[in-house]
């Protein structure tokens, strides 16, 4: 049975709130870089960057961070395709990087992202923003900005759809 837990207005509202929280936490810092983790994190990063720029004109750039080659389960799973990493020309050194992912679950993707980021540069601050936190962490990792905390059981599946890739904004549990 599939149950819709977030509809489009809920997602819009959650992202707007996260954008405000990011602007607030950013006071006095210079340069925000949103790095989306493929695939849906890319779209969320672009939306957040646009929202932040709307709230307060500032130095905002967006990119993509592929974490595939940094995962710890590569030999145990079937081959995953890599996605191009695109770092804004201004780089990440000395800036505030916000890693953006769709769903936070075990924390292993976020761990891979931290390693991948270290190989690219040295931001002054790294933060993590996710649309959904479904719990069940396997590593000591937490998100700084969460759209919605969703208590789930491990047997449930969280499906997150976005207009850019799926034609509709929706989060459901199956």
């Amino acid at each position: 049975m599939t149950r819709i837990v977030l509809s489009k207005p809920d997602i819009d509202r959650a992202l707007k709130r996260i954008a405000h929280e990011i602007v607030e936490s950013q006071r006095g810092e210079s340069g925000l870089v949103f790095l989306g983790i493929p695939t849906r994190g890319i779209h969320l990063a672009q939306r957040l960057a646009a929202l932040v720029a709307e709230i307060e004109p500032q130095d905002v750039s967006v990119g993509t961070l592929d974490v595939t080659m940094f995962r710890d389960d590569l030999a145990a799973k079937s081959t995953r395709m890599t996605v191009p990493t695109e770092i804004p020309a201004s780089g990440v050194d000395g800036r505030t990087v916000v890693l953006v992912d769709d769903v936070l679950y075990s924390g292993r993707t976020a761990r891979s992202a931290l390693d991948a980021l270290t190989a690219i540069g040295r931001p002054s601050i790294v933060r993590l923003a996710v649309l959904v936190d479904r719990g069940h962490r396997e590593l000591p990792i937490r998100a700084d900005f969460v759209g919605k905390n969703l208590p789930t059981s491990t047997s449930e599946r969280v499906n997150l759809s976005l207009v850019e890739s799926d034609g509709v904004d929706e989060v459901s549990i199956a």
Partner: protein
Amino acid sequence: MKHLLSTRDLSRDDAVAILDTALDMAEVRQRDVKKLPTLRGKTVANVFFEDSTRTRLSFEAAALALSADVTTFTAQGSSVSKGESLKDTLQTIEAMGADFIVLRHQHSGAAQAVVDNRWVDAHMINAGDGTHEHPTQALLDAMTMRSRLKGDAARGSDLDDISITIVGDVVHSRVARSNAWLLHTLGASVTFAAPRTLIPRGIDHWGAKVVDTLDEALDERPDVVMCLRIQRERMSSGFFPSETEYSTVWGMTPARLAALPDTSIVMHPGPMNRGLEIAGSVADSAQSTVTDQVTNGVATRMAVLYHLMGADS
């Protein structure tokens, strides 16, 4: 995919996936930190029964870039000179802890025999077997063609509308075979130009056209001219009258390059015999991809190692 033995085993989608990963690996090679942790704790054994500099160094660089440990075995001065068999040599190397074996061997079909007879469990990569195949060379050549001819549109694409002339010593060339099969799979049209003495029997089954002069092939204005090395070490005399005549009739000269469109590229797998199959000035021209091929070789081999490591392999 557990092994890479032949380009004939690759579907179009397999090949495009490897080439796309290779693009991402090439981007990593441009970074300050050029290393990925992907193969940490794994060992890649380069087992070379035949001389090779660029292929061995390229596989070494690829394995190191993925954080693998690398051991290198060359037949010279080894137990092979005491009569040890291929099976025993490979089992010894695997017993020391090799997860990947990169095999270069003078006999056609050597890597295939190792896998068919289940002599080892490691992932096998054929790095050249006799005059048979050299699949990673064909993949790096395809990557070079895609990137040079398609630029930003390279990702996800095959070589559907690309025409390639392969000129020279086809009969002794594993590069030609692996390329012919891969290029056919990727939808390219391939023409071979070579003296009849250097055309193998059975070439009609390669899905390519054969012409009798290089100029006939160049009249079609191909997108790619791939020069093959004249393999002096594999050749007893009598395949062609003289080196001077060969370079006049079959060599990629400045005049022949000038007659090609500016967008066409000239490839050579190396090592080059400058002045024989390719003129020095052609090899150094902007249309030459010789150094691109070397750079792309490392990225391609990283991609191959990565695609073999997954659990579905």
